[in-house]
């Protein structure tokens, strides 16, 4: 664990230094974050302009889901997507060789190979939305509710990361996955809505196949105190199962790495 934290620290150091090389990116990313936050909120404002609740969710409660969604988007844009692009590039060019030659966990190294801290500016917007929603709800979460929502958010990050590792593993066989980021982004976009909004096939799909409920709805419910312990435990178990499956599949995918010819 100590070694993993040391490696993470070394990778984050490089990420920060690289970001500091390009100061303009910081300001551009900050402006873009504000813009995307407005875009994220727009559908919600339109929907709740015409009705008081949506699938049992009031506007401020749905804002909690948006808050977690925005926070998670910060993680996705700041760490997950850049690494996904980087690893697909590494596999195509054969430069994954250098990652695999290091005496460190290959999955950890590729998962932290390109972190863009400034793109994480979304996360600050997410925290602001969460605060605003709680004020509108006139609800002060108990310590237990706050802790449960944070734990479920970490499970959401683990789940998102695992889905990403599973997707990246395909790149060892298919090599060219230009549309992977877009596919990933499109599916993730549905997590801005409480999962009870979806019906039929989509409800099943977003609960069991791509469990978006775990990503944003459950942390929001935990903060409101409406999530049962049983559902919370199931969500955590789901995240652990996805994490272990992703690790197994990635290990198997590495065996199929063919490297690129020199």
């Amino acid at each position: 664990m100590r070694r993993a934290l040391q490696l993470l620290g070394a990778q984050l150091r490089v990420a920060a230094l690289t970001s500091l090389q390009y100061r303009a990116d910081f300001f551009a990313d900050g402006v873009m974050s504000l813009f995307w936050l407005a875009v994220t909120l727009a559908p919600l404002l339109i929907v709740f302009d015409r009705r008081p609740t949506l699938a049992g969710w009031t506007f401020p409660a749905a804002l909690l889901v948006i808050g977690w969604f925005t926070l998670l988007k910060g993680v996705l844009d700041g760490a997950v997507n850049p690494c996904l692009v980087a690893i697909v590039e590494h596999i195509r060019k054969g430069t994954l060789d250098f990652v695999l030659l290091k005496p460190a966990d290959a999955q950890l190294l590729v998962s932290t190979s390109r972190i863009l801290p400034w793109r994480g500016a979304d996360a600050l917007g997410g925290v602001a939305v969460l605060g605003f929603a709680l004020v509108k709800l006139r609800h002060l979460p108990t310590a237990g509710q706050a802790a449960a929502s944070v734990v479920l958010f970490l499970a959401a990050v683990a789940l998102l990361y695992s889905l990403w590792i599973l997707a990246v593993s395909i790149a060892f066989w298919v090599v060219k996955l230009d549309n992977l980021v877009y596919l990933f982004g499109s599916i993730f976009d549905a997590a801005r809505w409480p999962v009870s909004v979806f019906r039929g096939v989509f409800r099943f799909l977003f609960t069991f196949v791509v469990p978006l409920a775990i990503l944003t709805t459950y942390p929001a419910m935990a903060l409101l105190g409406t999530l049962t312990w049983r559902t919370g435990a199931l969500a955590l178990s789901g995240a652990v199962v996805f994490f272990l499956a992703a690790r197994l599949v990635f290990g198997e995918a590495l065996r199929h790495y063919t490297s690129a010819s020199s």
Partner: protein
Amino acid sequence: MIQVEDLQKLYLVHRRPPGVWPALKSVLRRPRETVRAVDGISFSIAPGERVGFLGPNGAGKTTTLKMLSGLLHPTAGEARVAGFIPWRREADFLGRITLVMGQKQQLLWDLPAEETFELNRALYGIPRAEHRAALAELVDLLDLGKLKSVPVRQLSLGERMKCELCAALLHRPAVLFLDEPTIGLDVSMQAALRAFIRAYNERSGATVVLTSHYMDDVLALCRRVIVIDHGKLRYDGGLAELARASRPEKLVAVRLSRRVAPADLSRYGAIAEGREDRVVFQVAQEALRDRVAQILAGLPVADMTIEDPPLEDVFRDLFAGKKG
């Protein structure tokens, strides 16, 4: 240090004729064929040796190096490097080897090379004092004083390769796999890197396995060469012995002070190359002494040199299947 026994790597590749119809057919059915990239090679290399691993493009050199450095799993066969099975990729093994590829780089493109050095210190878990000493030694040997603090993207190809070598050697590996490390470099930079590799090998006693298409690299660094072609071992032994076995003749190059008729020249032996004032004779080793005396006595010689055949010719013969 390195033992290889009947190592094989087979690839399944999809081939189809050009055109739209074959492309459409290939969506439904993909005929595949097996390519034997490495086809049952065996050899061993002692600690501290510098060995040239040679062959034409596509011979299987890089695939072999990648198996020996743990990047690729072989289809069959066994190998041990520094006592480890490479493709298990144990941390202790990876800490004892390095692979430098002339066509790929590990340096962080946007940052000065010293940031890559620092990252590698963390990744290899090198204690700070040890890292400082290794870095000082490599900076001195490679003359990196000012280069290490310049962003990598602003360095020339040769300067980047120097920094690559430094990054690859900071953990003081016992085995160096060098895959065309001098490719694309100018002549003086090639010479500088050769001198460095030799000095590093002599100082540290590290084993060096080198692939290169530049015969000057091989001549300067390797007494022993392992030659593979189409994945099969074609030769393993001394470079001088290979040259003697493949081309036993010496080349006697003569500069003439006046023109001589071609018919008169051919009396002194087979002519490998002939111009108005310069002739190169191919002379058997055992006849060399007598033939040189005859040439000096019979021709208007202004200058004379005796050379071994170029290594390029030796390898051309070998790959064409003449001898060896």
